[in-house]
């Protein structure tokens, strides 16, 4: 069993969770975890040599020195395996291998192969507190965190009382029980935590005679006795089926012989049993039926109209329902068939998806096209407008150039006389700004 795979209970510290007994055994006995949530746990020392194992332990896993299942096994260079502590002791006495008497020193010892350690860890041993069998390697953890009979710090430790006592774990969820109370039977005052034990084993008044049958019984078990006292009034065995006879329990067998339900009772019993089995059968059948219906629906969904537009909510619904079904244990052939159908459904889904994608792509393209056409038109318009403008500019420039040539050709003398004749607005300008505007227009032409 992997420890990490389990969800630790709330009071388990996340650190040192997977402590192996061989590590923690060397810790001081009452060392406590500093984790606040787990601070009621006491670290226990498991004496692995005092354990009672379930069944017989393989002879090959028994240390020749202590005759117990190996603890911290080490292997010698001559191939013999002992407990670390046993061989340490033996070597302090004589430096020979206890089995074959070859020379041996502590330096010749190596930790045993993993396979031996694993076999030892897997040995089932009874918990020294609660006698339930666990793998040996788990015992430490079991004792420290789960065993109901193991000692833990009293729940009062965290409260202002600061109780220093220890209690069995099964009492620890009832708060601090270290307060004085009175035994209801003998009026002796004692600690609450001891009450149960006291009433069962120690109390002078623990025994009482049943007023009906006279048998001696424990006062604290009175209510249990009520259901088995031979002199208590009880109903007939077949009361359930209609017999109204009531008598002392010990006399009931006599009544059974003459009970009018003598024949019907057993029959009814059988029928009841039968009905119960049928009911449970029906329940399982309904469950399987539901499962199959779900599966059929799923398959139908997968095949129906593979080209319909993709609906995401519907898709995720099916995926969700498909997962638990797939995890269901099924006979192999049915399972593979189902998986195959699942695969087909997925394939059709895929084709749906690709169709949807193509459609989307087309839509996008048209959209883009629609967007771009006006832009293109506008662009063309702008271009034509620009061409007309540049045509105008060129025409104006040529006009100006011709004008200049003409003026140069007539000479400076006729300058003043021709001014009034041409009537051009620019003829009155000085030569400098004219040249400037010349250059400007040339610039514009080259740019265009």
């Amino acid at each position, binding site marked *: 069993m992997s420890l990490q795979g389990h969800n630790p209970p709330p009071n388990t510290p996340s650190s040192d969770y997977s402590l192996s007994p061989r590590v923690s055994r060397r810790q001081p006995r009452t060392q406590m975890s500093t984790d606040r949530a787990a601070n009621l746990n006491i670290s226990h020392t498991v004496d692995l*040599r*005092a354990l009672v194992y379930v069944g017989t332990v393989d002879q090959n896993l028994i240390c*020749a*020195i*202590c*005759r*117990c299942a190996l603890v911290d096994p080490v292997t010698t260079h001559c191939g013999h395996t002992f407990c670390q502590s*046993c061989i340490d*002791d*033996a070597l*302090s*006495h*004589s430096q*020979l291998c*206890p*089995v074959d*008497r070859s020379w041996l020193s502590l330096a010749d010892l190596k930790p045993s192969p993993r396979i031996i350690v694993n076999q030892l860890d897997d040995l089932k041993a009874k918990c020294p507190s609660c006698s339930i069998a666990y793998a040996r390697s788990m015992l430490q953890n079991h004792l420290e965190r789960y065993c109901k009979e193991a000692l833990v710090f009293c729940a009062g430790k965290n409260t202002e009382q600061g109780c220093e006592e220890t209690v069995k774990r099964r009492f620890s969820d009832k708060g601090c029980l270290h307060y004085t109370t009175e035994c209801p039977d003998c009026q002796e005052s004692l600690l609450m935590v001891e009450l149960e034990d006291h009433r069962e084993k120690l109390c002078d008044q623990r025994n009482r005679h049943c007023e009906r049958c006279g048998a001696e019984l424990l006062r604290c078990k009175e209510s249990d006795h009520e259901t088995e006292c031979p002199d208590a009034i009880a109903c007939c065995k077949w009361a359930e089926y209609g017999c109204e006879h009531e008598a002392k329990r010990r006399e009931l067998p006599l009544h059974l012989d003459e009970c009018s339900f003598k024949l019907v009772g057993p029959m009814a019993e059988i029928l009841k049993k039968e009905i119960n089995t049928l009911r449970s059968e029906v329940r399982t059948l309904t469950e399987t039926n539901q499962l199959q219906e779900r599966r059929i629906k799923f398959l139908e969904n997968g095949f129906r109209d593979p080209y319909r537009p993709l609906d995401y909510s519907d898709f995720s619904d099916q995926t969700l329902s498909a997962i638990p079904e797939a995890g269901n244990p099924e006979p192999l052939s049915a399972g593979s068939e189902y998986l195959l159908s699942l695969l087909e459904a997925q394939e059709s889904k895929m084709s749906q998806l690709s169709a949807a994608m193509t459609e989307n792509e087309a839509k996008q393209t048209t959209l883009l096209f629609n967007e771009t056409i006006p832009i293109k038109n506008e662009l063309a318009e702008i271009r034509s407008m620009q061409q007309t403008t540049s045509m105008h500019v060129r025409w104006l420039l040529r006009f100006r150039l011709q004008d200049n040539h003409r003026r140069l050709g007539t000479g400076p003398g006729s300058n003043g006389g021709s001014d009034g004749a041409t009537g051009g607005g620019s003829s009155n300008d000085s030569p400098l700004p004219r040249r400037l505007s010349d250059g400007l227009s040339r610039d514009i032409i080259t740019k265009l």
Partner: protein
Amino acid sequence: MATSFATKRLSKELNKINGQLPPGISLVKADDFQEWQLDIKVLDNNPIYLNQTYRLMFKFSSSYPIEPPEVTFLACPDRPIPMHPHIYSNGIICLDLLGMQGWSPVQNVESICMSLQSMLTGNTKNERPEGDQQFVANNRRRPRDIDFYYHDNTV
């Protein structure tokens, strides 16, 4: 700790002995984990030991099985001390297996009994060790403190 170690080991051995013992060996007394008594018989037709039963006394120290137990033959009305060139007439046994040198912690009560059985079986000399009278008269030491000289490997 050492005490409980020996106790644990001995309780394991006792469990096994109560279950099954090799032929010719039987448990007489094991009331505590300090002293046990067992009976052994020689199984073949060796005339020296024919139809005889011998009582062995084991005394365990707290260091058992690291240290050997003290093993002697015990003389009772119907349990004589066997004749053997390595067994003194007061029951002390000269066997290297039981000495500090020859002992190994893997030995146990059962294996000691079997070794003694075979030691008797292989013997042909109906005699006591050399200087038996003197040793028996003078020895006040416990067997574990005696330095035997294991000189004779023929028996």
